[in-house]
């Protein structure tokens, strides 16, 4: 597998559509333990990305991802704007100058994205955030690559792990983000940011 800039832009479009479709769902998850805007934030952000990349002929994948990240930062606000924004910018820096990327690049990008999120948000795994979807996904990717699975299966492993991570967020107490204000009462509720992350992994898997 090797994908080019055109495909990356195409994936961003699909993510935008998925966020639009899941706007209400994500917002309702956020209403239960946050302020009820995660769906609005994600959909607004990725619509802006879609708009920004429309008819973009850019071939440098690093540049596309950097644009994506900056557009998210400049349009979303809230917690998810800087976090997703940083994630895409860091991923982009990892592959700057490349016009084609492969599954090994994807692993490095994901690692850079996760590190960026952790640095920006000062959260760790088990704090009931998007990290609880992304870190399992990264681990699954690394394992799958070590087991020499096909790129498609690697991405499937990522999506599955992310979704398991989402399910796990129901079991734990939030310690970061707005949901942390609820303390113990956050248990039983699924983290909206982890959910949107898993949606992204789903799209990447499906589209490749």
């Amino acid at each position, binding site marked *: 597998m090797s994908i080019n800039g055109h495909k990356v832009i195409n994936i961003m479009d699909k993510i935008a559509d998925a966020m639009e479709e899941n706007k209400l769902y994500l917002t309702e998850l956020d209403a239960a333990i946050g302020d009820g*805007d995660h769906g609005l934030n994600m959909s607004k952000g990725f619509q802006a990305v879609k708009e920004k990349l429309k008819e973009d002929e850019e071939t440098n994948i690093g540049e596309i991802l950097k644009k994506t990240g900056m557009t998210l930062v400049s349009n979303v606000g*809230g917690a998810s*704007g800087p976090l997703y924004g940083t994630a895409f910018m860091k991923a982009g820096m990892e592959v700057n100058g490349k016009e084609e990327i492969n599954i090994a690049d994807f692993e490095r990008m994901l690692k850079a994205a996760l590190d960026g999120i952790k640095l920006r948000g000062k959260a760790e795994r088990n704090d009931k955030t998007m990290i609880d979807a992304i870190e399992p996904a990264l681990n699954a990717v690394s394992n799958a690559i070590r087991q020499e699975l096909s790129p498609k299966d690697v991405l499937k492993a990522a999506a599955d792990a992310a979704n398991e991570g989402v399910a796990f967020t129901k079991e734990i107490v939030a310690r970061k983000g707005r949901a942390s204000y609820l303390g113990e009462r956050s248990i039983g509720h699924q983290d909206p940011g982890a959910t949107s992350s898993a949606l992204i992994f789903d799209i990447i898997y499906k589209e490749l």
Partner: protein
Amino acid sequence: MKKLINSPEQVVEDMLQGMILAHPDYVRKLDGYHVLVRKNSPINGKVALVSGGGSGHEPAHGGYVGTGMLDGAVAGDVFTSPTPDPIYEAMKAVDSGAGVLLVVKNYTGDIMNFEMAKEMAEMEGIKVDYVVVNDDVSVENSTYTAGRRGIAGTIFVHKIAGAKAETGASLEEVKEVAQKTVDHVRSMGMALTPCIVPAAGKANFTLKENEMEIGMGIHGEPGTHKEFIQTADEVTEQLMKKILEDMQLAEGDEVAVMVNGLAATPLMELYIVNKKVHEILFQKGIKVYKTMVGEYMTSLEMAGCSVSILKLDNELKELLDAAADTPALKV
């Protein structure tokens, strides 16, 4: 959803236009950004104060732009932290070279966006520092969590740090007194009704006709628990108990009191709450130096109130009393 608006997408822009039309002597708007700055910004040699956050808390923060308080206020979408760009633009517009102090409420989103803006401004050579307000005792504080939220106590920080900046103090000095204010102020709120974010069209939590929400946030975040509605005295006792448990107040101490309306609660009821706040403090031998009763940090059309107590020393008293001339607060 019953609101006097034109469309959910337009509320922030329409509101800011309405503000500059109402207060042309105080504020101007930065072209293309949801940012209000003092009309005569930057002010030579003065440290500039910038605050902001999601909209829906009016008069916070645009209403506090003026002499003795803020130099700039950045308005995000309703209940959503602004992005770094307008925060950065605000800093550029108000910095006179003496530096900028950001007053940030403790929300992950606000902190990250303000931090990114700070990084941008620093790359431009602007001296920037910030304080994080975290006065809401309904949220447990811990180094393992995001910590307490920032709510109405923030207005005391604007007032006091703003007065200090007006004296020509350095960025370090302004930050120090801002941080002292943060350390000395505690708040807690309750709601009788939830509120509705225009773009969402429905409320985050619901309350039965006989229920109230205790310890909710100012963004419609659910509170610590629901209870049957009690009398104003009982509600006030409950809020004050939590606040005072969290503060080290001794007999003879002096405080400032803020009874803050979240929007739909009439001033009549806020004064009734204030009566009980004073009685409780009086019984403990704590002296009230200054009282503010009104709507300082609202939550769209939520009914309810918060109480804030600021422990004072001579410096804070003097800065609290210093002149301020802003649309929402005049001293």
